[in-house]
């Protein structure tokens, strides 16, 4: 059978392979090469070694955006997951209307980042205007604004994953704990939470990578105002490419650093999940 299928390789594989080369492999390799070059267009690329990377690490805006992003990722991770878990717990109880509530909490997740950003810009600026200030005046307004925005967007999503996890816990385990005399709080911490570890690792991973990769919402809500202080890494890289002539190489070097950070988080996550899987 394999031989028969093999003859059809061009039809089955080539369209995807060709598009994959154009859309991913070629830009990726070119990107790594260009991070070692100085250029404005690819034709005038000149090899310069590690100088782009050195410039990237010497750029105070980039370093600031790194810490700002790391803090943002951690805070959003905690806020999103705590609320999502509580919602999932509440909405798996016997109660009227749980399905409607799930529908409502999930909905913002489907709205695009740019649109979300402008929806919240109106509201947050409306509130801040009462105190005679605005989003563009202080980077911490932007920071908490973004936290509110991504929480609104992603709590419903994580809630769905947690609900799936909660429903997969076999009822007899909870019942056994109940018979053994465990109170609701003990049941939550000693039975439910340990059983939920796979869902928790998935959600933690998703929210931390989402936090690091966030771009559209940042661009639309604050656009880095005031003076680049509310820039997350992705936006900083974008602005280096398209805002500073002659810095394209540095932008590409920053992009490679960014890629390594995101992959690093991915690897760490994989290890953590593997460790948990052994225990089960």
């Amino acid at each position: 059978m394999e031989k028969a299928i093999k003859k059809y390789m061009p039809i089955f594989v080539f369209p995807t392979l060709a598009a994959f080369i154009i859309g991913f492999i070629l830009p990726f390799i070119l990107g790594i090469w260009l991070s070692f070059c100085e250029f404005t267009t690819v034709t005038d690329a000149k090899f310069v070694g590690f100088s782009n990377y050195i410039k990237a690490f010497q750029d105070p805006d980039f370093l600031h955006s790194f810490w700002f992003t790391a803090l943002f990722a951690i805070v959003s991770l905690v806020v999103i997951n705590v609320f999502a878990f509580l919602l999932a717990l509440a909405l798996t109880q016997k109660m009227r209307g749980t399905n409607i509530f799930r529908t409502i909490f999930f909905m913002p997740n489907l709205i695009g980042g740019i649109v979300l950003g402008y929806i919240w810009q109106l509201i947050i600026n409306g509130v801040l205007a009462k105190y005679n200030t605005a989003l563009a005046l202080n980077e911490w307004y932007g920071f908490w604004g973004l936290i509110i925005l991504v929480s609104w967007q992603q709590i419903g999503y994580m809630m769905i994953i947690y609900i799936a996890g909660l429903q997969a816990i076999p009822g007899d385990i909870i019942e056994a704990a109940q018979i053994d005399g465990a109170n609701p709080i003990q049941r939550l911490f000693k039975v439910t939470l340990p059983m939920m570890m796979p869902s928790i690792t998935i959600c933690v991973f998703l929210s931390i990578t989402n936090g690091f990769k966030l771009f559209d919402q940042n661009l639309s809500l604050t656009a880095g105002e005031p003076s680049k202080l509310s820039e997350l890494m992705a936006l900083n890289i974008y602005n280096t490419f398209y805002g500073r002539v002659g810095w394209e190489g540095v932008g590409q070097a920053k992009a490679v650093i960014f890629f390594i950070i995101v992959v690093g988080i991915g690897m760490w996550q994989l290890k953590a999940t593997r460790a948990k899987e052994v225990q089960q």
Partner: protein
Amino acid sequence: MKMKRTLSWVGTIVFTILGLIYIAPIIIVLINSFKNKVYINLEPFKLPSAETWTGLSNYASAINQYGFLDAVGWTVFITVGSVLVILLCTSMCAWYITRVKSTFSSAMYALCAVSMVVPFQMVMFTLSLVADRLRLNTPWGIIIIYLGFGAGLAVFMFCGFVKSIPLEIEEAAMIDGCTPLRTFFTIVGPIMKPTYISVGILETMWIWNDFLLPYLVLDINKYKTISIVVQYMKGSYGRVDMGAIMAALIMAVIPVIIFYLSCQKHIIKGVAAGAVKG
């Protein structure tokens, strides 16, 4: 027993209030979309009065001055086109690389897994150069880019499902004289329907809302998607027409809500499936 019932009612009431707060941002934007643009920034939380009410004129200016309907058209075209192409090509590719064991197959699988982790910023500059060189900067060309960039997740999810299909069914079909193509389209395709729906929904959500990829790849003087128009309305310096923006935000949200309410079950299933795989 009685206490449990009252508790459940209290829960329902609390969550009704929470739910209303949750959708309040959209309602506020909706209310503002009917106000004269001058008043939107001044008093965003007030209901429109006789003085501030402008009816549908904000919607008219979003459509007439900013070409919002063209953007909707292009967004629909790009999303539907890309999703159909992705579903067809990647499912075929996934079936091939799971059934034919070779170095090429495992390399392809590994590359797809890697591509899911790569942030878009890593390739955005070079991708837009490549797209420009190959003249893929049209809504037709961008479909190829989406196939390439979205292939990772799709191939990965299809492979996961193909592995669970018993080989005997396909073998029987091929012994009976089916070519691999016919086996794929008459036997494997229908079995994979649930995965087609999950992948289709994940890719639709991504492509419909995507901003940066079309913004960098498309020739935006000619073709704009919804996200690009919204960003363009706000980001272009000079006069910012808040009224038209509010109307555009509402018109951008409505199709999404309709889509969500009409295939909610599939969406939630698809999201859960994608999250576990990713």
